[in-house]
């Protein structure tokens, strides 16, 4: 767990005022404990990602929430897809093959419109 001071010290490019703004906008969600803001390892990594997007890739403050929302949706979708894949992977081999074949049929360039 890291406090705001720890984070600002650890990431040289990070401006304290920016971090405070991101917290207000809920781009990062630290935990409140006895009046102190604490960042989990995951939130710290998220702050690093936002720093990369903002300071290095020069995504401006107004666009940042849009990009992060898309990133969140991407990971959300991956979670669902991975649990779906785990369910498929738990099936018998012939069932797996049938599902792959059906995906191939739907996604392939040679897909035939059955309507």
């Amino acid at each position, binding site marked *: 767990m890291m406090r705001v001071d720890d984070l600002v010290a650890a990431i040289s490019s990070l401006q304290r005022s920016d971090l405070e703004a991101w917290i207000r906008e809920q781009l990062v969600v630290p935990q409140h404990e006895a009046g102190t803001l604490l960042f989990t390892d995951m939130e710290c*990594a998220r702050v690093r990602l936002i720093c990369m997007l903002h300071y290095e890739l020069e995504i401006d403050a107004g666009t940042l929430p849009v990009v992060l929302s898309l990133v969140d949706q991407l990971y959300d979708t991956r979670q669902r897809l991975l649990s779906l894949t785990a369910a498929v992977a738990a099936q018998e081999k012939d069932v797996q093959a049938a599902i792959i074949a059906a995906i191939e049929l739907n996604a392939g360039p040679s897909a035939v419109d059955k309507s």
Partner: protein
Amino acid sequence: MNDPYETLGVSRSATDKEIKDAFKKLARKFHPDLHPGDKEAEGKFKDISAANDLLKDTEKRRRFDAGEIDASGAERPQERFYRDFADGPAYASHAAQDGFGNNEELEEFLARAFAGGGRRSQAEFRVRGQDVSYVLPVEFLEVANGAARTITLPEGKTLQVTIPEGAEDRQTLRLKEQGMPGFGGGPAGDAYVELHVEPHPFFRRKDDNIHVEVPVTLREAALGARIEVPTISGPVTVTVPKGSNTGTTLRLRDRGIRNRKSGQRGHQLITLKVVLPAAEEPELVAFLETWHPKTQQDPRKEMLP
């Protein structure tokens, strides 16, 4: 560690702005958090970051150019990326989901499933097609002697099936790569053909031997004869010994089914069945009425008390 100029794709005389722009472009392309499914992205991004860290620092760049430090002099400590958490089981705070660990197998399965439709050229995944099974009714003589059959499947495809000599009922033949087509360049699945042997009107099979019941006339049985009998490989002449009876068994050596392992043929066993004349024979009737057998015969002796 590669040459940092090469890694960023800039010349040795590149300005700070050129280096920054090159890094920006590559970081967009390879930042692992923006490419969670791409296993190579992390390694590439680390190289790019290390090269950038070295070249953006004027003092380090001067010392590298002067040969005072090598390219690894600027490597950053191991960084845990956001995707390590977001793809992991702890991922919860920004888009609540029941968690599932990032799993190499799942990634591979996904890549495999979408190998055809994906926009990115993934590593090539070859998946074998599905196996298929068919039931093929075959005639007794086709399995006894072996045969080649062409069967047409419901979807219009034809299959060449070689029925091996001596195949057995319910035996399954495997036709390699005659099943469903594979994808991603993978081989087709196999076709399994189960033989259902139809019974023959007079041949019966027992292991490698063929049993057949052959009717003979009263005269042939009593006086002996040379008669023609069917075998699985065509008619053969056999000698019916004088005084043969219903139930008398004759053996034709090596006229049975060839054993697939030993190559030896079984035998044909002929059981004779004496038949009385079909039409009226008044002379025979007259003879029997006046016939007095030398020995009294009671064929039902053992059946009755």
